[in-house]
């Protein structure tokens, strides 16, 4: 297996790509879907449909950007889905005036618990967040056992507006992408996350704190999940204690499609945007093309395998 490990020598561009994890496939795949759908489904390029796609991917994008941060720090957060559900439950389950602050507070607490468990006590992130996922799912069902209730009006207004003909979701995407890009690429904090994700021990020998930033990653990730929960609840205009269930694995899938390495230190906001887009186009495309629901799961799986196998990362790993 001569290809098992790529040599240490990567010239300029390739070297830079080594940090972002971006490859040709990252861009080519959604582009391919886009072109194929433009040709194959007449409704696809309609403004209404593109706006739909935009709204449909926004929640996943928000969650995935949070997941990206945790993944860069060499962790993973499986509790994002339940956090989203809990947010949704809180939004309709408590006094409307308290709902949003309470949801944010919950996000903060969950992120702290995850982060402290992982960074201070050294629990494996998969176990810590899996346990948290179960716990939060229970809590969400406790707060609001069945779907229903009303989301605060102002929140709906903040999500479902149109500006200059563009849907509100578009601006949400813009804001979170810009925010995360700024945090990751233009602050000390961002740079240090890349550093400690690649090798926490070396990073610490370089004199940077490793525990607090790691906790911060989990907190920010949870808060992003809360944000996604607020967006999604406002979008469907009601609460649902199981709304977030698919998001845990989908967000991990999306970032992996975007070239982010779960081992830490490699990934980019751009990649995540394209990863989310890939998944979004897959779902929308299957609805438009009218693929039978009975072969949909298999189709998604095959497309995923295809996408992932084209990436050929540097090392074998999780």
């Amino acid at each position, binding site marked *: 297996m001569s290809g098992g490990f790529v040599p240490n020598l990567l010239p300029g561009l390739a070297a830079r790509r080594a940090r972002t994890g971006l490859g040709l496939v990252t861009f080519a795949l959604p582009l391919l879907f886009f072109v194929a759908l433009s040709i194959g489904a007449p409704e696809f390029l309609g403004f209404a449909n593109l706006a739909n796609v935009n709204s449909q991917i926004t929640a996943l994008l928000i969650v995935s950007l949070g997941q990206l941060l945790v993944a860069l720090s060499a962790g993973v957060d499986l509790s994002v889905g339940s956090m989203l559900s809990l947010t949704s439950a809180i939004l309709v389950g408590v006094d409307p005036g308290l709902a949003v602050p309470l949801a944010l507070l919950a996000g903060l607490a969950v992120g702290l618990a995850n982060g402290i468990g992982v960074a201070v006590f050294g629990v494996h992130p998969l176990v810590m967040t899996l*346990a948290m996922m179960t716990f939060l799912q*229970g809590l969400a069902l406790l707060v609001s056992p069945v779907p229903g209730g009303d989301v605060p009006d102002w929140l709906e207004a903040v999500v479902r507006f149109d500006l200059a003909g563009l849907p509100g979701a578009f601006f949400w995407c813009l804001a979170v992408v810009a925010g995360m890009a700024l945090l990751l690429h233009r602050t000390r904090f961002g740079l240090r996350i890349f550093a400690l994700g690649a090798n926490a021990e070396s990073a610490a020998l370089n004199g940077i704190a490793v525990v607090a930033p790691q906790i911060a990653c989990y907190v920010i990730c949870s808060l992003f999940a809360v944000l996604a929960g607020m967006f999604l609840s406002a979008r469907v205009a009601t609460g649902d204690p199981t709304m977030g269930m698919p998001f845990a694995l989908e967000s991990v899938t999306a970032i992996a499609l975007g070239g982010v390495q779960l081992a830490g230190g490699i990934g980019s906001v751009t990649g995540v945007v394209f990863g989310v887009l890939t998944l979004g186009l897959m779902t929308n495309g299957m609805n438009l093309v009218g693929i039978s629901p009975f072969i949909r799961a298999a189709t998604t*799986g*095959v497309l995923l395998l295809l996408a992932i196998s084209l*990436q050929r990362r*540097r*090392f074998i790993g999780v």
Partner: protein
Amino acid sequence: MSGPDSAAVGRTTIADRLRALQGAALTLPVAYGGTLLLLLCAYIARPALLSPFLLLLILRQAAPLGIAVLGQSLCMRVLSLDLSFGGVAMVVSYILTAGMLPLPDWLLILLCLGVGVAVGAVNAIFITWLRASSVIVTLAMAMVLGGIVIAFSQFRAPGDAPDLLRLVGQARIGIVPVAPFVWLALLVPLALFLRLSVFGRHVDAIGANPRAAWTSGIPVVQVIFTVHILSATFAVFSAFLLVGFVGVGSIDIGRDLALNSLAAVILGGVTFGAGRGGVVGPAIAAFMLTFLFNLLTSFGLGEPGKLMMQGAIVALAAIAYTARNRNRGIWK
């Protein structure tokens, strides 16, 4: 002066030995302590659960998870993951119970094992040759497998399980159910093989440093291949027991297998990347989780309370375990 001195020496050696003993106890996987604690809880609150008859039945319930855990722990020892268990279980359940293939039962069973090997091999091809992320590969594999079953079955519930598997899944000798013996029959040889064979050493090496294993000529790719094939095969056995126990086919059989096995493996003391971890710890952890589900159901907390307790207990167990072993790290 010499008197107290030598006494002090004697004391320290005893203390040392005690400390060593305590150290050994502390490095035991969390599953051991956790199981004891749960048994204690049951003793106080639900003594009915501790009757031998019921304990044995719980053991039977734990067997499918326990077998899946064998595969998962192997994967994690070579820094990989296998989340395709649910998909494998669906395929097995469908092949065995849908009656679409007019084959005798034993051939169906062989066919399932063949499918397991194939699934493991495909997983491994993606993970090694194409160097794709094992999380995504096996998740996608689960989707594909489940999707194929859905496409074929159109969600129709399949028919009855083969008699042989029903027998194994449900039969008892006296009060002792048979299923745990299947578990043991897979666990013991695997544990021995890993402990005694060159293969086991290679697994340790790859877990400790895959790059070093590669540069020193250990057949990393073959080992990962074998591990994934074994893992998928164990998933097939796990599904055999599930199908046999349920007695009829079911679409979403084994849905929780992947994530529960993951939790059990880690609670059982297998760590990513340390080249450490046995087979017994995860097995105990599989029992612990199953016992926990039973205990929580018996408390009648309702779904929310049950989920919250389950999450809190797993998290606290993991924290307690790693916190004790904290000072074994690099930072002192």
